[in-house]
């Protein structure tokens, strides 16, 4: 359950960072201010036709020709759909303090999100995700997870000291765990309030650092034993080495406040992605998780090595 949550968090953090970058990368030349028609535009908004081939005589030609600058216009794409399929090896698949059992795990998930701007800096965001996790040997641990969340995102003013440019969000989320392949057999459900603060800092066009502080306050659950409040900090470094290759290093520390025990959980990892197209990428990931509880039965260490295929479209 912890790992599934981590994956979800790291993905949503990366998506949030993408959104931050896309605002920055809207094009080199400055756009005219809103309401002012760009020179070269007709009243209908279309481009003024360039001088046609027929109208231009050969004597007007130059060796290099004329280079008219085109300006990209940011397009808001409210819908995003994703599909992920991945395999991983875990050296302690049962997350036990001793008698560790390694296993191969197959995961797949599908998600849909809708994000609509409520103003220049405020967004309404909501989404659903269905994830399946299957173990090769420990199939008793198989489970499915269904998530729903919705919330408000607010980009903080750049002028604010320290927090300027961060994105604050407040979401409500609900998820449900069920036996693998048996959606009617509910294992656990949880309804929570999730505030977070995300800060992305571009070191240069290819390298960036991401920081995320978040909490998941459980409001309701069907199991008091498994119910918990969660407080976490994530730091990640992302690098784009070329159009095809990207990598990231991340470190996450969290405090899990259960009814009957408290845990400290740490995850460190590295990922390398090969970007095939804007909608398809392959990745390999390695991470190490360490859980320290005041009840020793919940202590564990687990190392994971895996690969995944991720598809995503926006429109």
């Amino acid at each position, binding site marked *: 359950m912890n790992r599934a949550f981590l994956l979800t968090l790291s993905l949503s953090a990366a998506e949030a960072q993408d959104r931050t970058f896309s605002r920055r990368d809207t094009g080199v030349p400055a756009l005219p*201010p809103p309401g002012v028609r760009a020179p070269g535009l007709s009243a209908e908004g279309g481009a003024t036709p360039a001088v046609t081939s027929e109208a231009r005589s050969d004597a007007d030609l130059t060796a290099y020709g004329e280079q008219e600058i*085109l300006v990209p216009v940011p397009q808001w794409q409210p819908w995003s759909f994703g599909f992920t399929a991945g395999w991983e090896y875990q050296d302690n698949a049962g997350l036990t303090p001793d008698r560790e059992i390694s296993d191969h795990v197959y995961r797949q998930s599908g998600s849909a999100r809708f994000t609509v701007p409520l103003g220049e800096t405020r967004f309404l965001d909501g989404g659903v995700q269905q994830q399946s996790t299957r173990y090769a040997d420990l199939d008793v641990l198989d489970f499915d997870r269904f998530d729903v969340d919705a919330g408000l995102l607010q980009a903080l003013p750049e002028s604010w000291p320290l927090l300027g440019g961060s994105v604050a969000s407040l979401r409500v989320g609900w998820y449900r765990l069920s036996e693998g392949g048996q959606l009617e057999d509910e294992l656990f459900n949880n309804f929570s309030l999730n505030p977070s603060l995300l800060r992305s800092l571009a070191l240069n066009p290819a390298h960036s650092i991401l920081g995320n502080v978040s909490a998941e306050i459980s409001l309701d659950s069907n199991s008091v034993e498994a119910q918990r409040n969660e407080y976490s900090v994530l730091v990640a470094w992302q690098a784009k080495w070329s159009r095809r290759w990207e990598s990231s290093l991340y470190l996450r520390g969290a405090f899990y406040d259960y009814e009957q025990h408290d845990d400290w959980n740490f995850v460190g990892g590295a990922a390398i992605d090969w970007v095939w197209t804007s909608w398809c990428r392959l990745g390999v990931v390695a991470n190490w998780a360490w859980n320290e509880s005041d009840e020793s039965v919940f202590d564990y260490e687990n190392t994971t090595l895996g690969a995944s295929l991720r598809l995503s479209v926006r429109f």
Partner: protein
Amino acid sequence: VKTLLFFILYVAVSHSVPAAQQPAANGGVLRLSRDAALRDGRLETGTALVSSARGLVRAKPEVLKVGDVELACRGTALIAKTPQGGVKVTCLEGQLIVSVAKARVRLDAGRMVLIDRSMAEVPETVEVNLERLLDTSALTRHDRDALPGAAAIEREIQRQRKALARGRLVASGVALKDSGHTASVSQSSPTTADQRGASSSGASSASSSPSSSASTGSSVVGNTSVQSATACA
């Protein structure tokens, strides 16, 4: 009078007829402007059009050097040595790897970059109107179909047309001519001061990346003449 007529005819023909297409080093083709000088794979003056070979097996890139800049072309590109000694490169289709000192940048189809002679890095790139560029260049106006990348160029033109029609790209009205750095602003209707400001900022942005100095230029703007400060390299 005959001499003058011959001279005018010569000038007209020499500017309109592209230089003959010649094979490039790795199976592609090369077209050079009349004033171009290419020695040992190094463009010393003028403008070159490079189109790399196609095939089921990925062909080697065509490599051209201009000053301290190395250009590895897998596709088709217009490359010029600017009058100021810099480099102007536009990728018409495929991609180019532009290397300056230790910096390497990929240039995709439709993107142009101006690199000043003194630069140690590749500045930011801008998108240019390929259809207009190809129609106004003596190296591409004629016999475009003879280029290995002709079909891919046509696809890139269609991509830009579609983006313009859907509003994903807009024409800035700022254009650079030939291998120079000076941008001119075209406007088809009377403008307010704000619009002129927007145009000037567009011109500034368009050519600001390689700029190391600025000059004030006079740009003919439709029926009017606007004195605008255009950032030039």
